[in-house]
């Protein structure tokens, strides 16, 4: 079976002439079906650029991104949108919910755009809301609910179109520790149910929920840690140790 995501030597250069800046430099890696991969690195290392490029929100200057063998770096604007809608799910640090829509409406938006029948939409949204414990707030507006509830709404929206791959960008960044742990357990649970997740974080605790962690520094992949059969606490310690080697430039804690 083909890898879900295959990244081949991508580069991203900003600026023109003498003042160019390489945010990504020869990055290659693979993510298989059912993985839960964390991307870590200090601020400015290129984490967000990498995520944006993979998420097709930004385009790489060079290199290929293959999703199930299909090169998405070569798709045009409209097909990219469709691809994003049908195959990718997003969870952001600041939730990115639309405040003029109710929780239910926020979740069903991707389905509405894909012209899914009303009955099917309703069934899917209700099922997801029940699973993530937000069924009682479906008709409330984002400003009426808590941060944790907002993030669970965002998770539901990411999942509603049955994506192949979920991108999470610092999903716990704005949450208190209780809500953050809840969310991470939810993600881990999703992963066990065969959803592939790629999460960008600089929080070692959040990263310890992953099965594999990739480190990125100065636009390059530096190394990777694999959890294997280690317990989460042991893995957490390993990540912290790894970060400690990075020295003073680290902002992981």
């Amino acid at each position, binding site marked *: 079976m083909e890898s879900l995501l295959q990244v081949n030597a991508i580069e991203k250069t900003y600026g023109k002439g003498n003042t160019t800046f390489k945010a990504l430099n020869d990055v290659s890696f693979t993510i298989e079906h059912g993985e839960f991969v964390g991307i870590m690195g200090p601020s400015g290392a290129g984490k967000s650029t990498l995520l944006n490029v993979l998420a097709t929100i930004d385009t790489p200057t060079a290199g290929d991104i293959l999703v199930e063998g299909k090169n998405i770096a070569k798709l045009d604007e409209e097909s990219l949108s*469709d691809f*994003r809608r*049908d195959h990718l799910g997003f969870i952001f640090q600041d939730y990115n919910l639309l405040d003029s829509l109710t929780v239910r409406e926020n979740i069903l938006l*991707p389905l509405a755009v894909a*012209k899914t029948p009303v009955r099917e*939409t309703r069934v899917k949204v209700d099922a997801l809301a029940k699973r993530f414990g937000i069924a009682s707030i479906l008709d409330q507006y984002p400003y009426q609910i808590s941060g944790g509830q907002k993030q669970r709404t965002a998770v539901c929206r990411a999942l509603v179109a049955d994506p192949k791959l979920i991108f999470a960008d610092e999903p716990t960044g704005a949450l208190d520790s209780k809500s953050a742990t809840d969310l991470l357990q939810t993600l881990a649970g999703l992963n066990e149910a065969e959803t592939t997740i790629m999460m960008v974080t600089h929080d070692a605790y959040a990263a310890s929920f992953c099965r594999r962690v990739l480190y990125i520094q100065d636009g390059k992949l530096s190394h990777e840690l694999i959890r294997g059969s280690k317990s989460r606490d042991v893995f957490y310690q390993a990540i912290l140790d790894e970060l400690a080697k990075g020295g003073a430039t680290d902002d992981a804690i």
Partner: protein
Amino acid sequence: MTLFDLAKKNVARNLSRYALYVGTTIFSIIIYMTFATLKHSGEISALAETSGQISGLMNASTFILLIFVALFIAYSNAFFLKGRKREVGLYSLLGVRKKQIGLILLFENLVIGAVSLVIGIGLGLIGSNVLLRLLLNLMNSDLSIGFTVSTSALVETTLVFLAIFLFTSFQGYRVIYRFKLIELFHADKKGEDVPKASPLMALLGILTLGTAYTLALQDLATSPLWGYLAAAMPLLIIGLTVIGSGLLFHSVLIFILGRLKANERWAWRRLNLLTTSQLLYRIRGNAKTLTLISIISATAITAGGAIFSVYYYAEQQVTSYAPYTFAWQGDKQDIDADVLAETSVMQKTVRVALETGEREYGVIDETTFRKLAADLGWSEPEPLQEQGVFLIDPFYDERFSEDVNDVTLDETMYSVASRYDKTPLNVMTFGGLFLVTPDDVFKTLPGEGTMYQAVSVADYKEQTALSDRLSTADNFSSATALYAETMAMHGALLFVGSFLGLVFLVATGSIIYFKTMTEAEEDRSKYAVLRKVGISKRDIKRTIRQQIAVVFLAPFSLGILHASVALFAFSRLLVMDFTVPVLVWMAVYSAIYTLYYVLTVRRFTKYVI
């Protein structure tokens, strides 16, 4: 770095944001300057002597323009300040005193004012010269003029706008003193409940508008309401229309949008959900603006439509008042032009007792009448019976006039065989009211009779010299002179009307544009989310088009509806059919308005994606 350096830097950095405000200000100055120049221009004064209404018209229009320009600038200034609250808050947070912030804003406003004044007056000079020529053209005047610079217009414009800038500076100062720091940072973060419309208010809105329309369509002559309320009636109609429009935007529109959003089959398709939500979210705050726009549009369309209609029918009016190019009392004269028709008319005068009093009629015989009818291309009159007469009354109005069925001439009764409501002879020479009697009856009527001449020539509009030569004759009337007069008056009216109409149109377009672009700033992040979630540019563009279309279309359609009712009432009052000129005017208005829509959609789309 001094505060003024900071202010200067600020202007330079935020140029695009200032551009809108400066643009509005310059536009207002150009308009005012142009108008003031026209008002003070010697050529117009010369014309004003010949047609006295023009100077009065110009003065009244300048006053309307003054109020309007002041409101418009105050409005865009308020918008401008609203967009900058955060910046002011930041200064405040950094410890800059309110007084100092006030000074920065004052300084800025003065710089903007000075720059706009110089540019506006310069462009206004050019504009006024172009428009002056256009005006003379419309008025059919063959005066030729050079480039005019009017000192009094310059002084007037400068004074008016200095006063306005003083006012807006004060407005800015007040904003700073009134708000609290905490509000600045949460100004647009606060969640607002999505508005729910009470069906009762929606119903009330429709009822109010319905009442206003019913009142407007009452017949001026027969309705008892006009009798009771008299002069208060127009005020009542306008008041009810404004309230009704307000309620319509405040409740009816929200009610409809709420219903649409609740309909899942429709709402859960594409971005319909987002379109309705965004509109709902915004509409209550916009209700006042939308009402204002609908009222301004209605005023501009009504005034423009009425004026254009009158201009459109001016020529028809001339020929109905003076069917023959020239008419006079006395003998034939040499006509050195291409004569189309020529008739000598012998007229006697009788006084006839009617129910409402005595009336004086001119009497002509049947043979003369047949000749006139043939000259004018009327259908051939049926032969008169012995005891019959034709009655000609161009002023007949079924609502006011008495129905005259028989007349007594020289103690004999004649019945009216047929009534004509147009006159075959120039009203200014003959008076317009005629009785046509059989030839032998005419001969037996007492009195000598007076000889008149009626002549039609080709190209009657161009016969000024001939008209002047003939004008010494007794009871002279000339279609040429009447046409020139009518054009001078209606031309000026049309000019002023379309000028103000255009100003109003630009104002409504700009207000919506300002509002929409302010919203674009707030909405930018929302559209970024949509892009990230995988919604295509095509879908986003569609929802933007739809949202802006509603904001443009709703007040405009209501304005058109108001104007249609008003023009219908007006045309019935004047007994004229306005359909063609009004439709032409509305088409022109809509076309320019559509241009605004397209521009706004483009800028909005470019800004958010």
